[in-house]
């Protein structure tokens, strides 16, 4: 019994390691393919520069996913009820706090990569951008072309937009840092032509790597949570610790729902929906109404901790339900080992 409780953190750590590596690797792969250009030279140190931000983005979601998967084991081998709850909770808090410290560095260090450029065109190719199609006959990179400048030179550009052809003998495309908010643009050689924003930012392979809308929405929510924690960390480390603890408590307390009904699949689904609530709550506070609600609190620091208080409150409520209404021992009476996930 007790052995199972002590094994839970080990399993959590291992699960986290696997998920964390997989998610970080996927983020890195997605980022590298998003800027890949076969004619452009590999930027030295690209991997080192992008590893930390990718790992940072992967951290919190990996911890949450590991906790969700651990529930299956907790249900299967509950061990000591209190220890099985507290140990994974503390470990997840430690992972997040230590993880951010190791990956990002001291509080206040910016997470995002601001340096690094990419080249959005390849020669003799038709590229599909938001405003139409664009053929570029030749691309001269600053390094290969031997000229200095902050853009690439395009030769013989033919643009097809709204049923009309536009020919530009020479044009330039600004080199673009990924952190910049505004899209890069094609600067025409002729004054009679207008600038053309390059959207998507890397039109060469964008149709291949288009992120499904649902996943894109989820990624933005994960980034929101990530940014929230990092902003708290930069503002006040104790607030950051409180927020991490609240989120972990909320997630861990969802274990109570694994015994909600006699149908494990439904229980798992409900738990998943509750995990999703973590992001929905934060999105609410990021909305106009949420900001108005936060604005009612005069103390800026407390206002920024409102989402954390909500997590904490709901988490404590679930813990109370667990203690008061769920019988001691395992969540599911097992006979002969059980079969829950």
């Amino acid at each position, binding site marked *: 019994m007790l052995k199972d409780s002590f094994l839970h953190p080990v399993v959590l750590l291992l699960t986290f390691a696997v998920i964390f590596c997989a998610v970080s690797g*996927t983020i890195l*792969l*997605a980022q*590298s*393919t998003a800027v*890949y250009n*076969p004619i452009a030279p590999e930027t030295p140190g690209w991997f080192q520069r992008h590893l930390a931000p990718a790992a940072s983005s992967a951290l919190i979601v990996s911890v949450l996913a590991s906790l969700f998967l651990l529930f299956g084991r907790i249900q299967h081998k509950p061990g000591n009820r209190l220890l099985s709850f507290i140990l994974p909770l503390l470990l997840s808090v430690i992972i997040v706090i230590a993880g951010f410290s190791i990956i990002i560095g001291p509080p206040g260090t910016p997470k995002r990569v601001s340096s690094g450029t990419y080249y959005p065109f*390849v020669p*003799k*190719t*038709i590229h*599909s951008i938001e405003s139409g*199609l664009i*053929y570029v*006959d030749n691309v001269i990179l600053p390094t290969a072309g031997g000229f200095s400048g902050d853009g690439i030179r395009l*030769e*013989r550009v*033919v643009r*097809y937009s709204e*049923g*009309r*052809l536009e*020919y530009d*003998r*020479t044009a330039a495309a600004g080199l673009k840092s990924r952190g910049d908010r505004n899209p890069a643009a094609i600067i025409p050689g002729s004054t009679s032509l207008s600038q053309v924003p390059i959207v998507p930012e890397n039109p*060469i*392979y964008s*149709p*291949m*790597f288009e*992120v*499904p809308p*649902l*996943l894109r929405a989820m990624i933005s929510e994960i980034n929101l949570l990530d940014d929230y924690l990092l902003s708290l960390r930069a503002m006040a480390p104790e607030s950051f610790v409180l927020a991490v603890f609240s989120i972990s408590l909320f997630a861990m307390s969802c274990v109570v729902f694994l*015994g*909600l*009904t*006699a*149908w*494990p*699949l*439904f229980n*798992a*689904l*409900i738990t*998943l929906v509750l995990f999703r609530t973590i992001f929905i709550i934060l999105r609410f506070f990021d909305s106009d109404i949420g900001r108005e609600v936060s604005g009612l609190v005069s103390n800026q620091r407390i206002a920024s901790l409102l989402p954390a208080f909500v997590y904490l409150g709901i988490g404590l409520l679930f813990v109370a339900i667990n203690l008061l209404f769920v019988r001691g021992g395992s969540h*599911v*009476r*097992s*006979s*002969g*080992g*059980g*079969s*829950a*996930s």
Partner: protein
Amino acid sequence: MKRDDFSSLRHRITITILIAYALSFLFFGFYSFFTFPEKYFLAPFRLRWSFLQALVYFITTLNPVQCTAVLLACSFTAPPVPSFRTSPGEAITKLLSSTVVVLIVFGALAIGLNEGLKPYVQANITQLRERTTVARNYFDLAGVKRSEGELRLAEAYLVFYLTMDGKNDSALEMLNDIRKRMDDADITSVTAEPRPRARLAELDAQDLLEKAEKALQAEDYYTAYYFANLAKEISPVGSTNYRFATNVTAAIQDRLSSFQAGAREIEIKSIFEVKTSAYNDLASNDVQLISRAYYTFKTLTERYPEDTEARAFYSESVAKLSTMAYFINEVEDLIAMPGLTELFFVNASSEDGSVEIVSLGTLINTDEGVYAQDIEVVSFGSDGSLLCRLSAETGKIMPGPSGGLALYMRGVDPFSERGTVLPIVVDSIDDDVCGEILPLSLSGLDFEFVSHSGRDLKSYHLNKLYNMMEAVANRGYPEDVIQAAFLARISSAFGIIILSLLALAVGWRLRSPTGRPSIGGIIFIPSFPFIAYFIIQVYEYLHRLAIGAVLIRWDYVVALIVLVVMEFLLLAASILILTTQSVKIREPG
């Protein structure tokens, strides 16, 4: 477990999948019916469109629906009864073998529907949309013709429209109005409206006199006589042109009659001379000369209908001209025809670096031929200098002079030489660089690939997508994108089986001990396909990412190998996960 339990599970999965399929189709049927886009389709197409669109939705969501069905079927499997003769390992192997076949069969069905039926259904939907476009354009044309007083034509357009939308009140109302007007009006005058093909050649006296003068200067008196005589005939008596033409013919007659016969003989001789000249024009390969011959023979056949020789040469000139230009009356109703839109491609590129880029606004395939509208061409040399830039309103695609296809941009007005339409040369390095015939390097199918609709890679059959890989590479489009789409299609075929196996494992692992869902759980069952859909989207994206990364960095063959290895590993992993499932009993909670 008893053999019956496995058999029962197999049946349960089969029935659940079939029920899920039926429910899914019904849902999409209703959804399509109530979201019918009247903007793009005629009202009578509602049922047909709803059925076809429901099929598309149904086939697109087969994977999540099937996974949900498997998940639920396993989740509600009654607790297995342990058998003394069967070990847990054997039991799970039996479970696997009994259900995997079902999953493979349904997986194969899904792949077949996706690759076989779906593109066909989508093509049918496109056809309905095109028919709507044609019908509505004819309806609009009917309105225009009614206001222009061409009632017979307006009636014909409306009758055509009503063959597709027979209960359209406004069309019926307009038709009644047209027929009433036709009854009221003098029928003969209406029928006497000049039809395009019945029109005579539109001759211009001034033009003819200029030709006569030119012939006079060249001392070609018979030709000069022919044109001057023709100008005299079409000019109003007493007009300047009439007087001038009379003077010219009289002068020629005076000059020639001094040593030859009378006016009639001169006329016959002049016709002979003109015919000979036109015949020489016709025998050449110059489109301008052939065009000149066409107008000459057309005039001759109208003026001398008894002249069989002129008629024969006229037919020959029409036939020959049709291979080198298009007649503008052929394209009058093109606006009503749907076709491919926004074609943009590299037409030709040579090793010396010169490139030719072509854009076509629309490409319309009719019974009379293939026509392009809103044509623009840009070509430049290796040094970036513009060789030619031209645009043309319309062109006809026909076999080119040097094999392959070519775009002929000269439009011949069948009635007036002045109505000839030529491409507009915007800029050119040399007069000879921009021609009115543009040789095309595309074959018939390639046009679709470089069009707006063709760039939607999801709409292709797998084999068409495969053929497209090479076709687009030479047209300026990145080959990698098509290859990635092809590989993604292969991967999704594996995906449906892998994900069904994983759903089987998850469903089995999280099965209800009672074999029934909880009351609250029933409410949430409809959300399962949406969750499955999301998971499948993520799964497919990760596949595209992994395969795409290999493809762009290495090679298509390497990517294909990686894909096959990856799919087999995933298949093995899903089977392994399934085999590790427990068959032990869990008590009802």
